[in-house]
């Protein structure tokens, strides 16, 4: 923890509430707040928010000559009344930073800004540190005159501090937190757990620019927080995250999702990952359950051919699993199947129950790879449906998934060398 004691340290709480004066010392108004531009190690003061004749006005840094306790002096004697508008990367020190939590990067801890220290370095006023101790509180509680005479104490170097800005109301004001990258994923996870939900989300968002780091932080988070954050992310992002996680952690994360979302997310994973996740989630990769794809088209026996075609058109399932279309009865039991080509040739006024006369062989999720392969060979099928104990279809295994598994290892390697997927 770097601590410095430069000669002239100004305290924010003593600057705020002071008077704004023109070049000749004439009183113009009172100082409400200081505006700084975050992003640098020592953020420069870019302006003063003042109250002049009951109106809030903005005085840019270029108009300021000197900032001191109880008085801020302007360069000119003319006040150009500008209403305040937040600009990108700017925060109000008193409103947005003072009294709030900050991240002390060196200690990987959350601290509270009891006082903000400002000093003139390299020609201009900059935030140099933050007092997190009792002294800062005492100075603000005692009468102003006493506070002014209190000697400055040690404080935390701003270069190792990161402020939360999520509560700053400007729309889409997104200040990067570059210092966070210096922390270990486990430390970041600890911070997220200790911070409020919104502050935690800010850390997670900042970390999100580096997807490897983000995945690492998720792996370190406790279940409660992991659930909080993963729930509010869209499926695509969750899948993206899962790809970068260790499979067992990925399964944990998946477990944090509501039931109805899990399958949607798994579907978005690349095949290898998907199989691994499924395997860990309970299915052996060499079984029908581990191999199956949840994407298929299955209609009620009462559906018309036109409805079937429409469903196929809307389906996002890969072409190979759509080679067969399935039919179920009102109990959702698998009742028949029809090859896509046969469906197209079927009379257009036919009901699915009448045209899908083939009763397909089916397997349970526990069925082994060999059983699936044998069924495919015996029945000349490219797709085999997987059903649960109630004979309801859960997914389909297509021949390419099986081939991938039964192909001798050496063959596959040669394939890789040839540059095929």
């Amino acid at each position, binding site marked *: 923890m770097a601590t410095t004691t430069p000669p002239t340290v100004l305290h924010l709480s003593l600057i705020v509430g002071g008077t704004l004066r023109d070049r000749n010392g004439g009183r113009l108004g009172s100082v409400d707040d200081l505006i700084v531009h975050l992003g640098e190690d020592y953020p420069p003061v870019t302006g003063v928010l003042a109250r002049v004749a009951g109106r809030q006005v903005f005085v840019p840094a270029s108009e300021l000559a000197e900032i001191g306790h109880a008085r801020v002096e302007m360069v000119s004697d003319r006040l150009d009344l500008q209403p305040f508008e937040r600009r990108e990367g700017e925060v109000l020190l008193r409103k947005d930073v*003072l*009294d*709030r939590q900050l991240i002390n990067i060196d200690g*990987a*801890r*959350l*601290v*509270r*800004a*009891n006082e903000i220290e400002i000093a003139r370095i390299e020609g201009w006023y900059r935030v140099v540190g933050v007092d*997190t101790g*009792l002294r800062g*509180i005492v100075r*603000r*509680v005692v009468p102003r005159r006493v506070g002014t005479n209190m000697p400055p104490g040690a404080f935390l170097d701003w270069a190792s501090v990161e402020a939360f800005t999520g509560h700053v*109301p400007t729309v889409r004001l997104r200040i990067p937190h570059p210092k966070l990258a210096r922390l270990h994923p486990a430390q970041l996870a*600890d*911070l997220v*757990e*200790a*911070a*409020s*939900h*919104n*502050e*935690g989300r800010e850390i997670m968002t900042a970390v999100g620019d580096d997807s490897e780091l983000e995945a690492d932080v998720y792996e370190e988070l*406790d*279940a*409660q*927080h992991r*659930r*909080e954050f993963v729930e509010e992310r869209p499926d695509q992002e969750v899948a993206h995250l899962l790809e970068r996680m260790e499979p067992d952690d990925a399964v*944990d994360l998946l*477990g*944090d999702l*509501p*039931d109805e979302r899990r399958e949607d997310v798994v579907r978005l994973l690349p095949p290898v990952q998907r199989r691994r996740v499924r395997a860990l989630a309970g299915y052996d990769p060499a079984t029908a359950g581990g191999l199956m794809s949840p994407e298929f088209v299955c209609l009620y026996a009462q559906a018309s051919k036109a409805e079937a075609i429409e469903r196929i058109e809307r389906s996002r399932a890969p072409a190979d699993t759509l080679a067969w279309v399935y039919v179920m009865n009102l109990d959702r039991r698998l009742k028949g199947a029809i090859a896509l080509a046969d469906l197209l040739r079927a009379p257009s006024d036919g009901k699915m129950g009448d045209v899908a006369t083939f009763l397909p062989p089916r397997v349970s999720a526990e069925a082994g790879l060999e059983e699936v392969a044998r069924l495919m060979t015996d029945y000349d099928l490219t797709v085999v449906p997987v059903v649960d104990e109630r004979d309801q279809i859960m997914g389909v295994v297509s021949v390419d998934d099986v081939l991938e598994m039964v192909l001798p290892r050496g063959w596959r390697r040669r394939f890789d060398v040839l540059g095929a997927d």
Partner: protein
Amino acid sequence: MAGRVSALRAFRHRLLRGRSDGAPRGPLSRGTARLLAVIGFLGPGLIAANAGNDAGGIATYSSVGARYGFDLLWMMVVITASLIVVQEMAARMGAVTGKGLAELIREQYGVRWSLFATTSVLIANVGICISEFVGIGAALGLAGIPAQVSVPVAAIGVWLLLIRGSYKVAERIFVLMTITFFAYPIAAILARPDWGSVGHSIVAPSIHDSRAYLFLFIATAGTTITPFMQLYVQSAVVERGVGVDELNMERAEVTSGSIFANLVAMFIIIATGATLYLHGEHNISTASQAAKALEPFAGQYAEVLFAVGLLGASLLAAAILPVTAAYVIAETFGFEKGISRRIHEAPVFVAVITALILIGTVVAIIPGIPVIALLVGVQVVNGALLPVLLIFIWRLASDRELMGDYRNGRFFNVIAGLTVVATSALSITLLAVTIGAPFL
């Protein structure tokens, strides 16, 4: 005092380094989790809600029943409504902002207001802490053990439990002991009160023009809507990571917990009203007198039953209060909290906890203290300080910038406003009466 349910949970979380022991993990589906939550909340939840009826609460409700019979029952209905509204605001703020109340006051109103709020909460907390140790002394006093022996031993035990952090098992035992207070509804029924006049008292307010009535009124408000517990309803919501999507579940819990705990409180009043009041014992001054309300149910064992319940409730609160105080101080002054959650890693924590236990012990072993008067007196202080915190809760919960679409609706603002105005008026009246004439 349903808030203690959440307070307990928050406390347990913290001792466990913020990891939830009971929270369903991984493969448990949302439906299962909800079912578990409902079961957990109907069983132990309600028992814990009742545990909030602590030493001060028992003393106050007993005094109310003995002094005025059923006359103040109507007030419990009003206070329950206020309690629900106040706790809902606290829970909502916790869910929306993800921050504790002390933290929000600090961020929104600055150091001075924050110190003001903290000081008033601390004064109330010190008072309650004293009352819990007095309760321990009184409970064991019924077994013939003098407070000068029992209280220091209990204090050392509580201190060790907190510092060693092996509080979990002890907490369960304490909570189980308070189940004995379920004897009150049975005793109340067995005492065959005139249910017609009970019902009449609930719907028809009767107001006495006396100082004692005012004191008991404020004490009842103070012990039912304890200031510190509002802080901890909010902290518990934050700690459990309750989001706005789970707010309705939280509302249901807050509402049913408040109603349940206050029902038990009303039965305490009915039980004492149907016994002590009818027998002409209008002024309770000892625990043994208060225990008589249980006689219709327990007969000669009334004192044992009362002692066990009082001991459990007092120990439970005696262990929670110092920690809650330490958290308020940490949030206000920005001392380290959260990451190093273990108590022994934080010197400020140990100092605050030790100080509170010490103060409680020292006061409780003073020979010949008027036990019941002191317990009720502490609740009067609580009630008098209540408006301070309520005003903050009210204002924060209606802050548009902070709460957005979740700020108070008009209906809420009216009830919350009425609660604030009523408690403030009572406090000011109390102040006027106290200054105008000597206390009691």
